[in-house]
């Protein structure tokens, strides 16, 4: 277990300490029981002392029951500690990820973050639970059982000292050889799964190009790889069980022979001999357990380090605690801005951006795929920070504001917008938690969403599945716009957010914007010239640079990119 994670056990300290203590008591009791049995035989039977037999029998019974209680308590404690720990780590990870900037998220990819929060935590919690019980149990058992064996008959216990190192070395060899093979197997397993997943996602392509046979072949290869690695890994571990049996049986025979002779010569008692036989099983099983725990710990190591990696991740964009909490006005200025996703001067996404947007202006941004439009507006809300230069909002650097103040005043409708599972109303309330029904309806009317929402049987209470899959693309976009409007922002940014909306509705939305958002700075990224032609100014982006700024008419005259785009959309219209 990693030191970094131990503080998360703090709340469950008592349980985390209690479990191993209970286990230790349990083990000691379990060890004493065969010893008492030997006393019954050697003292009770030898002396024909029924009273002694009953007394010892009663004592053993009490010890067994106590041991049972200790075992159960340890189980409960371990569960409380393990699950509590998992909860704390999960919460901490989730909070950390919430703090993550988009750069941080990009670094890991969302899929990997999800795995860390789910599978990796489950692995870690299970190992912790096992450690709290088994990791104590096995060594304590090994030590106590060997100790009492020495106490009863030191010479005979030499048998254990011959077998234990042999078993330990054998187990070590098996485990260390098996581990890399299992890792290889897991990799092949992942490969097989991603083959299937890819095939499922692209099943239409597969069918359209009649590539079923080809896919089968690729799958067969993956499945065969898995089969081979699986066999090679299991082939190694398969020796463990028989080896253990060999050791155990060998011990039994050796103890029978040496012990038997000792009894005959009078240097050992029958009961003691019987308890020895009993300790054989206990010692060897605990040895096996040590091996298993080792494997599990090694396997969990990967999970633990993946969790710690996230917890240790340096947050790329830090909130400014002493930041300003209000915007003076809604102007936006880009001052000599350079930006790179990789933070690499030679791999710039935005170059030399200088731009001034006055409060209340409507600005359109046009540009090709990858020209940097989306990146540009994401700098305004600090989803990313500039590499050099400054972005000013309301005359102050965005980094001078508290993130909450900044983001509450700037509303962004993202290109890949997301709706969450829940009712339409719940989704809309993201914009304003205490929004009244009237406010919600007003925003939806402006976003041209009210009519279609009302056409659903449940209206605003319609439940949306994850990602809003039961809506069409255009409907989703309109709800997202309404959600952004509810924030009543000083600045609103629409990043290609009406691409799936038909042109007539699109123009109605813009009409509503012009009417309702007179004082709001509006930035519209669009593919269609029609969406931006009425803007106060239009910015043409090309390969990370501003190519030109001007009104529709100006750009038509002076800018060849703009003209090209316009003509490509204009052609054929008389």
């Amino acid at each position, binding site marked *: 277990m990693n030191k970094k994670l131990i503080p998360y056990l703090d709340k469950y300290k008592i349980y985390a300490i209690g479990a191993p203590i209970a286990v230790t008591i349990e083990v000691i009791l*379990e060890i004493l*029981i065969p010893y008492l*049995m030997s006393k019954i035989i050697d003292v*009770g039977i030898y002396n024909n002392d029924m009273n002694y*037999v*009953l007394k*010892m*029998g009663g004592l053993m019974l009490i*010890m*067994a029951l106590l041991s*049972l209680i200790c075992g*159960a308590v340890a189980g409960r404690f371990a569960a409380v500690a393990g699950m*509590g720990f*998992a909860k704390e780590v*999960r919460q901490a990870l989730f909070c950390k*990820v*919430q*703090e*993550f900037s988009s750069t941080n*998220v990009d670094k890991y990819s969302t899929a990997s973050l999800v795995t860390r*929060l*789910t599978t990796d935590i489950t692995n870690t919690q299970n190992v912790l*639970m096992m450690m709290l019980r088994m990791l104590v149990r096995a060594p304590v058992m090994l030590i106590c059982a060997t100790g009492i064996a020495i106490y009863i008959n030191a010479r005979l216990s030499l048998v254990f000292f011959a077998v234990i190192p042999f078993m330990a070395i054998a187990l070590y060899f098996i485990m260390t050889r098996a581990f890399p093979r299992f890792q290889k197997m897991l990799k092949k397993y992942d490969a097989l799964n991603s083959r299937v997943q890819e095939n*499922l996602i692209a099943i239409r392509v597969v069918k*359209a190009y*009649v*590539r079923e046979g080809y896919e089968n072949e690729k*799958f067969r290869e993956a499945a*065969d790889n*898995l089969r081979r690695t*699986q*066999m090679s890994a*299991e082939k190694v571990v398969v020796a463990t069980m028989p080896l253990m*049996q060999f050791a155990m*049986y*060998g011990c039994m*025979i050796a103890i029978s*022979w040496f012990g038997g002779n000792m*009894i*005959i010569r009078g240097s050992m008692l*029958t009961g003691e001999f019987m308890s020895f036989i*009993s300790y054989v*099983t206990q010692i060897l099983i605990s040895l096996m357990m040590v091996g298993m725990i080792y494997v599990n710990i090694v396997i969990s190591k990967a999970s633990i380090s993946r969790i710690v990696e996230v917890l240790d991740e340096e947050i790329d964009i830090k909130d400014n605690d002493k930041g300003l909490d209000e915007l003076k006005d809604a102007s936006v200025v880009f001052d000599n801005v350079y930006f790179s996703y990789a933070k690499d001067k030679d791999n710039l996404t935005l170059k030399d951006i200088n731009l001034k947007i006055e409060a209340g202006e409507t600005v359109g941004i046009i540009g090709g*795929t990858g020209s940097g439009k989306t990146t540009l507006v994401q700098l305004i809300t600090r*989803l990313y920070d500039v590499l050099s230069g400054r972005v000013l909002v309301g005359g102050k650097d965005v980094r001078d504001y508290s993130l909450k103040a900044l*983001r509450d005043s700037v*509303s962004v409708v*993202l290109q890949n*917008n*997301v709706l969450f599972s829940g009712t339409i109303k719940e989704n809309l309330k993201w914009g304003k938690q205490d929004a009244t029904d009237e406010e919600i309806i007003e925003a939806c009317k402006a976003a041209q969403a009210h009519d279609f929402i009302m056409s659903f049987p449940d209206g605003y209470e319609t439940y949306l599945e994850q*990602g809003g899959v039961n809506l*069409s693309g255009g409907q989703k976009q309109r709800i997202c716009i309404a959600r952004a409007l509810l924030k009543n922002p000083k600045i609103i940014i629409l990043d290609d957010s009406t691409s799936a909306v*038909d042109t007539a509705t699109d123009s109605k939305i813009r*009409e509503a914007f012009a009417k309702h958002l007179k004082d709001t700075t509006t930035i519209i990224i669009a*593919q269609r010239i*029609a969406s931006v032609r009425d803007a106060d100014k239009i910015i043409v982006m090309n390969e990370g640079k501003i190519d030109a700024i001007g009104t529709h008419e100006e750009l038509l005259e002076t800018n060849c*990119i703009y003209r090209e*785009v316009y003509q490509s*959309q204009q052609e*054929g219209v008389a």
Partner: protein
Amino acid sequence: MSKFRTKGPIKKPKDTKRTLKRLLDYLLDYKLQLVLVVISIIVSSMAGVAGTYFLKPLINRYIIPAIGLRNPDLSGFIIMLLLMGAIYVLGALSTYTYNRLMINIAASTLYKVREELFTKMQKLPLRYYDSRTHGELMSHYTNDVDTLRHMMSQGVPQLISGLITVVGVFGMMLVLSPLLTLVVIGMIFIMMFTVAKIGKKTAAYFKRQQDELGKVNGYIEEMIEGQKVVKVFSHEEVVIRDFGKLNEKLRREATNANTFANILTPIMDNLSYVLYAIISALGAATVITGRSDIGTIAAFLQYTRMFAQPITHVSQLFNAIVNALAGAERIFNLIDEEEELDEGSVTLVNIEKNLEGDLIETDKCTGFWAWKRPKEEGGSEYIKLKGDVRFKGVTFSYDGVKTVLDDVSFYAKPGQKIALVGSTGAGKTTITNLINRFYDVGEGEITYDGIPIRDIKKADLRRSLAMVLQDTHLFSGSVMDNIRYGNLNATDEEVVEAAKLANAHYFISHLPEGYDTVLTADGTMLSQGQRQLLAIARAAVANPPVLILDEATSSIDTRTEALIEKGMDRLMEGRTVFIIAHRLSTVRNSDAILVLENGRIIERGNHDELIALEGKYYQLYTGLFELS
């Protein structure tokens, strides 16, 4: 010792007998090995049981009588130990044998199951995929096959060996001392009761834990995927609070579930110590009263320790096996699914003209294709592949309730460009789905070069069409491989040619490794637009007479689109093209534009005609330019 433990709720298979029989069918290929496995398991467990019995004669016959003798005769003792050793060696070897054999059997069987599963999936109609999530289908490969693996390599052998051990031990106990065995029977009842009780609780709590875990994981996924939205609405605190609530609920259920799972083994183990204590005292009493002897008690006590574990184990294994069978049943259900029907007999063949000008079939790759239709009177006729597609009164519904296409008729002559326009859900994509027989028409008929497409073999029909879909899907592999997916026989030069045609060559050559750049799962390192260019290149390399472009350029901005237009024009040249586009500018120069609404064609004609008509198309089109 086994890591094999039931986790999660038990789902019972519906028809256990049938599932078991199916599984056995797979295993029958290894008949001989299986027989050997069963024999080995029996030998292995019996050896363990028998070896312990030797304690009795050892103590009674060779040790106790020899106590105090000056020169005891140890030869009997030695022979006995050798015999014991022989039995043990046999036991350990058998253990190795069955475990080793099971690895082979399990791995090979699983390979076969996986392979059949996958091959079958490729044959299922798209309709099957519509009603299932990817996660659901994936779980066949992960959960279901996995539990099956555990069941085969560990579950069943351990179950058999556990049962044999319990029965063997019990039998030996009876032989040793019927009186003490009575006490054991009493304890067995207590143990069984405990296992059943705790097992039931564990299963119930695990189901609740699983439900909560599902909620927590779902929430995590949603919020991480929507993280940017969370940020722009500064919703972090609310989200963390809501997550905390779910997280705490999970903790509570998980603690309960794991408590019960954790306490079972210690309780069972210690119950066997309770029994051990009782037998020790009671056994000693019988020895004192002369009804038994020390050797018997020694062996009996050892047996007492031997059978607690298998009882705990067997009950857990039983649940696990039931679970695995349920998984196997789900796998078999998929394998039994009805395959995509294909009663077509018309195939696509290479042709060349002989001296008389007749079409004759050839193995050579001539670049000329023809439909080969078998004639009723024998022999077959050849119809040249041209790309003439006609819809005659086609009516279609996905679910039999909602009509998606209603009496749709149109034709596309070879080389014509047909555009489908209409709002989401109007039926545009459905039309293309019917052309390549992803779905079969309800009423009406579609013909291809005059042949009803029902009569054409699906594989050949699809080979004559290329599709570029709304969502582009790339496969992990190099850029070269991804384009070549359209035509596996294409040379590197042909691939590059196709990429140039689609205007993808420029960005590909700027990738770190050019055409050899390996794309990760679904090509996330490329922009949406670049991915679409690759998909177009893929269609180009397939070189079919009919091309279907379903919103193929929606993610490419108009300027880039203008740039690739030339390539697209070249790609479309001489081909019948169906084009679906949201952006009307891309469909303007089509030979015919079909405007769809609610599954019906409401307007048809070329751009100028439709503009002149001043109907729906006119409204849509002018909406683009009339702002206020």
